[in-house]
């Protein structure tokens, strides 16, 4: 006698049903738009705002043969790497402090980390103009104190761009490192100390190695976000400090050349995706998910 197949707890059909909404969202809002953009890279640019669906590899040929684009890509990766490294160096200490403190209201310190997110990102970026500008707080204070005679050129350069990105990305780094530190079994540190390690040695031999996954996750996150940044270089940098995101913006919005803009977008997607893939291969994505999830 045929028995009607019943649902079981680990039934694959149930799993598919549960995952279906997310899959559909991913397909419609991630895979499909990327596929459309990828298709656009083979369209023919006619004139500003006009393109035809006649297929061509001209856009890819231009990207691969014109050193202007590769130069921009290298510069973007360099700025992204510098920003991520600075985030790592500057972010580790606050994360360590929050983890190690015996302050009763540790939640308050964590809350302070996310307070900047309550203010618009653009406004936070604009605020640096009033701090670094010729009539900004720093220059005015230094001039009034007689320390300088001429305002320091702190705005509209690469330093200002990196500073703006640090401001935006540091909380991501701190959270990732903090989550990683939180998962360390503190008895390991006590054990190291009881076996004769100094505090510094215990940190170097136990805490630091065990927190590296969080640090690496933070580095990847900061690098990807910095390299894909558009607003910060636009507001705090000069034309020379533009990054690949600005190049894409200008190509699509300024030249109204969608096929080339799509090509550049796909290039950035592939390059940043490559770094994420390498990270996933060796470290796994779970650390980033933990860091973002808190």
């Amino acid at each position, binding site marked *: 006698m045929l028995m009607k197949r019943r649902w079981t707890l680990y039934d694959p059909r149930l799993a598919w049903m549960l995952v279906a909404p997310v899959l559909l969202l991913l397909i419609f809002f991630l895979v499909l738009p990327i596929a459309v953009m990828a298709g656009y890279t083979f369209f023919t640019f006619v*004139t500003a705002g006009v393109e035809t669906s006649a297929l061509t590899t001209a856009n890819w040929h231009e990207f691969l043969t014109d050193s202007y684009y590769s130069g921009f890509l290298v510069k973007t990766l360099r700025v992204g790497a510098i920003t991520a490294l600075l985030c790592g160096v500057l972010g580790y200490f606050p994360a360590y402090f929050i983890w190690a403190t015996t302050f009763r209201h540790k939640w308050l310190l964590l809350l302070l980390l996310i307070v900047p997110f309550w203010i618009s990102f653009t406004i936070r970026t604009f605020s640096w103009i009033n701090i670094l500008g010729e009539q900004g707080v720093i220059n005015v204070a230094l001039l009034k104190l007689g320390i300088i005679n001429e305002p320091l050129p702190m705005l509209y350069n690469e330093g200002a761009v990196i500073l703006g990105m640090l401001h935006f990305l540091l909380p991501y780094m701190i959270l990732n490192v903090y989550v990683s530190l939180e998962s360390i079994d503190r008895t390991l540190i006590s054990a190291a100390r009881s076996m004769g390690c100094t505090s510094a040695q215990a940190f170097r031999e136990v805490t630091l190695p065990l927190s590296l996954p969080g640090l690496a996750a933070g580095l990847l996150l900061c690098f990807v976000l910095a390299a894909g940044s558009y607003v910060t270089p636009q507001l705090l940098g*000069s034309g020379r400090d533009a990054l690949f995101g600005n190049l894409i913006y200008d*190509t699509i919005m300024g030249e109204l050349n969608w096929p080339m803009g799509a090509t550049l977008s796909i290039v950035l997607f592939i390059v940043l995706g490559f770094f994420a893939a390498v990270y996933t291969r060796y470290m796994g994505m779970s650390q980033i998910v933990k860091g973002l999830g808190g």
Partner: protein
Amino acid sequence: MKLTTTKRLERLHDRYANGDLSRRTFLTLTAAAAASAGLSMPWMGRALAAVQEVRFDGWGGTVQDAIDKFAFQPYTTKTKIKVVQGTFGDEDEIITKIKTAKPGDYQVIHSSGVNYYIKYVNAGLTSEINEANIPNMANVLQPMIEPFRKLTPKLSAVPYDYGTTGIAYNTKVISPEEAKEKGAALLLDKKYAGKVGGYSDMTTRVWYAALATGQDPNNLKDMDAIWAKVRETRDLAKKFWSSGAELMDLLSKGEIVVTDAWSGRVAALQDQGHPIGYLDPAGSYAWMEDMLILKGSPMAECEELINFMLDPATSIAVAEGQSYPPSLDPNKVKLTEKIEKLPAFDKTGTMKSLTFADPTYWATNEDAWTKQWNRISKGA
């Protein structure tokens, strides 16, 4: 003026008679038939009165504030039709948005004259205005309308204002005498290295390079020399601004002491008491702006709005508010003393004292030059 149902039907019928079919065709025919038969259906009134707002996108800042205060708000009070507003910093940005939206999402654009008009025409985004519905067009300067009509005999836009991109300078640092003596060369003066600004726009950069190399901006012979001058300005510049608000911010905060600048924005800064001078050097870049109705827009309402905006009282109030001369012919409409004192104002009504970009010439070179400018602006 509130449109009556009868008037609306007449206009819709006119549009149908002119072969200008729209999505309302069915409604027009049904309603016209019903009206002629003396019939009416309960849903008709609601459907005919469906357009309760018009979408407008402009440059924001002091310019749009003036349009809103002196044109849109009185228009809404009078007609109950709301004007929903959006802003853009760069017109290419709004063209991109329009391309990705469905017809009718964006309706009226405060566009940058004939140079941009070509882009809308090429992209198939233009409509056909029934000029009979905009009787105030009779007061608009013919020299401003003609370039548009050359591109499309049936207009999709109506000129609204004009101005120049001249030289703005900080009078605490640069004297009016020095500015007058050096003119456009101020942008290349090494004395002001690191304190120079400029509009991040290909046309403006190439135009001022043309003046610096002694070439006719509408017939450039030596592009290598042009790009060399563009690079020279870039190397002296602190920042190329990309919106009127950014221009005003950079000048008022003293970040830059000299830049090419939009006359109206400089006038606004002067009104606020900032020590900013302005001059139009010989061959200064003149431009006009228009109210462009996009394809798929509710034509009757958009035409009504533009007619209201062109009413002399409204147009003069807006012009005084935004500090740009109106497109009204001073030989037909008595303008105020304040307008006559605005930078770039042409009292003859011939526009011969102003040098506009030849739209066909610039359109031919636009793609290649924009690409080159984008590269140079990023250090290439």
